[in-house]
């Protein structure tokens, strides 16, 4: 078994060569699903370190993107061993960039970090209409809905979506978090969301509190 603490630290340090080497060596031992799951958990802890350093302004968005890339590569390497192992999900989040907006960098960072925190993430993509959110919520019954946008006009779309959720009788069944450049306390209230954030790491923490 590889040194899980060293792996966690290497992920936290964004030390890509060390992470990949540790995981490749581990996979060369033909590990079982349970062991591989422990490696995933160690990586997730490393992502927790990354999130904390981001909140302390030691890492920035570029570093979060890089961390997400390291994690994606790691999971890809582990996938053969993970097949068949039951992974435990803490909850489901439906996420999308709202209608009228095509920007997805922030959404993708949040989605990557939420997955790293063991959420099942259903990503509806960009320029997503309210109906598409409603349909998908009915289908997968998430605990949380994440609405993302960069343009100020996305605030209108967010409000439309929340209204549609209310009309469809779904609003009480989900928590709604809005994220992106234009969101604020005031916008959050006007939209009728439960929380807002301009910080992906903080957003994931809010979601974790909701599913506890």
């Amino acid at each position: 078994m590889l040194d899980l603490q060293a792996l966690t630290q290497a992920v936290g340090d964004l030390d890509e060569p060390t992470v990949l080497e540790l995981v490749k060596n581990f996979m060369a031992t033909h590990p079982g699903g349970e062991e591989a799951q422990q490696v995933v958990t160690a990586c997730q802890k490393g992502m927790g370190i990354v999130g904390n350093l981001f909140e302390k302004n030691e890492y920035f968005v570029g570093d979060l993107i890089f961390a997400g890339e390291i994690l994606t590569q790691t999971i890809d390497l582990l996938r053969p061993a993970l097949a068949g192992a039951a992974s435990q999900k803490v909850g489901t989040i439906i996420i999308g960039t709202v209608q009228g907006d095509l920007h997805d960098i922030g959404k993708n960072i949040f989605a990557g970090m939420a997955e790293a925190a063991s959420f099942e993430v259903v990503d509806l993509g960009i320029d997503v209409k309210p109906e598409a959110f409603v349909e998908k919520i009915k289908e997968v019954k998430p605990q949380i809905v994440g609405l993302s946008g960069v343009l100020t006009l996305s605030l209108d779309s967010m409000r439309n979506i929340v209204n549609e959720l209310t009309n469809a009788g779904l609003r009480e069944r989900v928590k709604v978090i809005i994220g992106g450049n234009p969101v604020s306390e005031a916008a959050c209230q006007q939209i009728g969301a439960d929380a807002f954030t301009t910080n992906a790491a903080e957003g994931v923490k809010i979601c974790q509190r909701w599913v506890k």
Partner: protein
Amino acid sequence: MADVKALQAERTQIFHDVHDNKIPKRVPVNLSLPLEPLAGYGGIDLVEAQWDVSKCEPALDKLCRNFYSDICPGGTSLRYPGYYTPLESQSFVMGSNGTFQHPEVVGMLPEEYDDLIENPYNCLLEKVIPRQYKALKLDDPINMMLSFTKAVLGYNAHMAEQGVLVSKYTEKYGYYSTSRYGGGFTEAPFDFLADQLRSFKGISMDVRRMPEKVAEACEALYPITLKKGMPKVVSNYASVFIPLHMPTFMREKDFAKLWWPSFKRMVEEYASLGIHSRIFCEDNWDRYLDYLYELPTDTIMMFEYGTPKLIKEKLGKKHIITGLFPVTMLKTHSKQECVDYTKQLLDILAPGGKFIFSLDKNPISIGDVNMDTFNAVAETVRDYGVYGNAGETAGLQFNKEDYRPSPSRKLESKYYNTWEQYKESHPGVSDFGEAKLQGFEDSLFQFLMFLLL
């Protein structure tokens, strides 16, 4: 009519005073609605307005009568369908509501760094532009020629229509003409590399994986981005607009090593020619204010977020500050709250001059703003932002002799000729042709690089 001319003279004077390091009579009001919200204001279909900006004329006239600004308060855009459509752009596309947007796109692969570093302009034309503009198919040259020519014609047509509209209303209502002195538009070399070549995600990987290639690429792109921004005419009232994208997403040590050096050199080279840069510090630059201080005197700095007091204290005597009023407040706060905040902001930023009032960014849809509130903010600046010491010296004085350009690579490519190079290969050409032919050469350079901005 005399009133309009007198008003125009006053408006011109207050802007010029700010640029001439003098305390103006009052704080200039630099507020406008770009094309998209202007169309919304007039109830005009956005897509129709984008194809024919003259449809917005009644809306602009109404806006001029009902909204205070010292510049023509609307009708401009950088993004029109007449050129992005024939080129089949993937960098600039319309969202479902008709707003032009710039999605995350990759125009250069990581393994192509060496090519970019070796022959930067060739690489941009041969690889990056055809990837971002699907109609420019290298294996279908005749159709490619037609599509490209259509786009150039489209660009010229759109810019002429916009120019006619804005000049007409600038004169009709006596605004300060922001276009009279020309100007330029470019990006910092690192941002140019990030924006449409490597993408936000790609550059974030490269900074970690191959920082030395990133640094070399910035050097290679330097002469191109410098030339792209160069105004045709040098004036104390013209500027090169440079929106700054990536720094706040980077660690300071990466910023200091990879982002800052080529940018600072560019702004200093402009300054050595007497050209001012107008930078848009996107996001929150509080942690980089000491760097900004180092830029040439009278760099115009527009801020999005950040701490107004800190910005004024650190930069206010040397640089011209603008921005910082949150556009989102125009929707989320009451008229009174917005007026109060305007006064607060003026109390912090106006003293000592070197300040122009603007929002932290333009509204992009009429739904973003309560127009009654917006106008109240504008009138508050006009009436409250009055100086008692007009005409006094504001702060540090800009002297172009204080700046020396550092040596850098030159633009060398088989796709760009100086007049001397052209004459060498076309010995029969008359020197009378220089103004036209070299003008076209430079216009095409400008248009091609604009496609990557």
